[in-house]
């Protein structure tokens, strides 16, 4: 019994140890190349499947292939907001520095994904609907999601004291998380002409198997990309904020 307790304690200890910037920094440095390699593998496989294997869509022709970028980007933009808010909330509750840095690092990645989703959506919309932009539920809520990301980034950027910036950003992110579903449903009831979701958990997807594979591979690629870029950003933030610490000054990349 005692031994089990001891074991679980040491494992718990190791996990918590990672939450210190000085231990996390080198670990993240080792992980980044792995995630970049995974990004490349999934990206090449996903693009190959989506451009050469997946059949031409009966209705939408070749133009539909932009969904292999568009859909993963939209998924990532929404998912990253949740992850960002979760890290921010963790930082607020447990007062851990690294979680707040993580949230700060993920915000630009998520904003970029939201922008990419809107941009590719416009390219898709033009040939399919005949308009670059229509005011329908999912486009509008994606746009508002982008605004929420920009608000978070702007708020953190304008507060000089990092501790206050972290906490204020966390509150904003959590308020945003509560609001995202409300905004989504309100915009949905307001006006809807977007086609229904093509991939859903409850019913069989209305697309060819290979198309689904292409999309899932691309989604994995975007995941790995987000993790890699998020880790790189968090490393930069750690260096910036811990510049006064001894361990930072002894890093080979910091020493001149």
């Amino acid at each position, binding site marked *: 019994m005692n031994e089990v307790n001891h074991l679980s304690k040491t494992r718990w200890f190791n996990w918590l140890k990672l939450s210190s910037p000085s231990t996390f920094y080198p670990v993240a440095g080792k992980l980044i190349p792995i995630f970049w390699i995974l990004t490349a593998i999934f990206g090449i496989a996903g693009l190959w499947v989506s451009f050469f294997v997946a059949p031409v869509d009966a209705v939408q022709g070749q133009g539909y292939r932009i969904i292999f970028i568009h859909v993963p980007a939209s998924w990532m933009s929404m998912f990253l907001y949740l992850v960002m808010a979760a890290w921010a909330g963790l930082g607020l509750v447990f007062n851990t520095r690294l979680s707040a840095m993580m949230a700060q690092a993920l915000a630009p990645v998520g904003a970029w994904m939201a922008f990419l989703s809107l941009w590719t959506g416009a390219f898709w919309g033009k040939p399919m609907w005949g308009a670059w932009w229509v005011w329908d539920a999912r486009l509008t809520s994606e746009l508002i999601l982008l605004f929420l990301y920009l608000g978070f980034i702007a708020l953190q950027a304008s*507060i000089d004291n990092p501790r206050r910036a972290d906490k*204020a950003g966390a509150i904003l992110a*959590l308020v945003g998380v509560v609001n995202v579903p409300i905004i989504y449903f*309100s915009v949905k009831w307001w006006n809807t002409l977007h086609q229904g979701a093509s991939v859903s958990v409850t019913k069989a997807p209305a697309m060819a198997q290979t198309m689904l594979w292409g999309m899932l591979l691309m989604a994995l690629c975007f995941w790995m990309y987000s993790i890699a870029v998020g880790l790189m950003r968090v490393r930069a933030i750690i260096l910036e904020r811990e510049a006064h610490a001894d361990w930072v000054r002894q890093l080979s990349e910091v020493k001149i």
Partner: protein
Amino acid sequence: MNAMFAIITRDLLLVMRRKSEVLTALFFFVVVTSLFPLGIGADPALLRKIAPGVIWVAALLSTLLGLHRMFAADYQDGTLEQLVLSPQPLVLLVAGKIIAHWLVCGLPLVILAPIIGIQFDLDVDSLYVLMASLLLGTPVLSLLGSIGAALTLGLRGGSVLMSLLILPLYVPVLIFGAGAVYANSVGLNISGHISLLGALLILALAFVPWVSAAAIKIAIE
């Protein structure tokens, strides 16, 4: 509760001593709504159609104008710090400040709206719906706005930043508020819109004072 009423009367008294600030926000509401017919044209059918949206957007913007004042002056002269330190629960004090803001910046909009509505050629029925939607919606604007006001306390360019933070959160209120008036004008049932506005109000009343109180504590520490 007494502390909350004390805060409300104090804030109202302060406003009465400096009426110009409040009147500016109301004047802004009237001017902005009057500009639209000048820009778009005086076709009554078109004006009737855009009236709900224009009046509601103008209400959002003029609420934003007053939000900056909710905590900023008290933050600068240290009153806010004393409120945080006082034995009264901060949530109630914050709620009092939000109510005072609504009485000053929200309620006058509800009363002014029919006059603007007449300028836009709305019929009497639509005016009632407009007032009802504003009556339910403007408190939500004051409540959500208090979060932005508290988060941006003492920051460079705080009021511009606040509008960036808060306006996206106003979207549901705008949709259901303007939607109610529009639905009424095309003969649809408005109970759905009004119920949803009421739900937003209850939700905001239940949570926002706590969030704003937390944000104020962060700004002060």
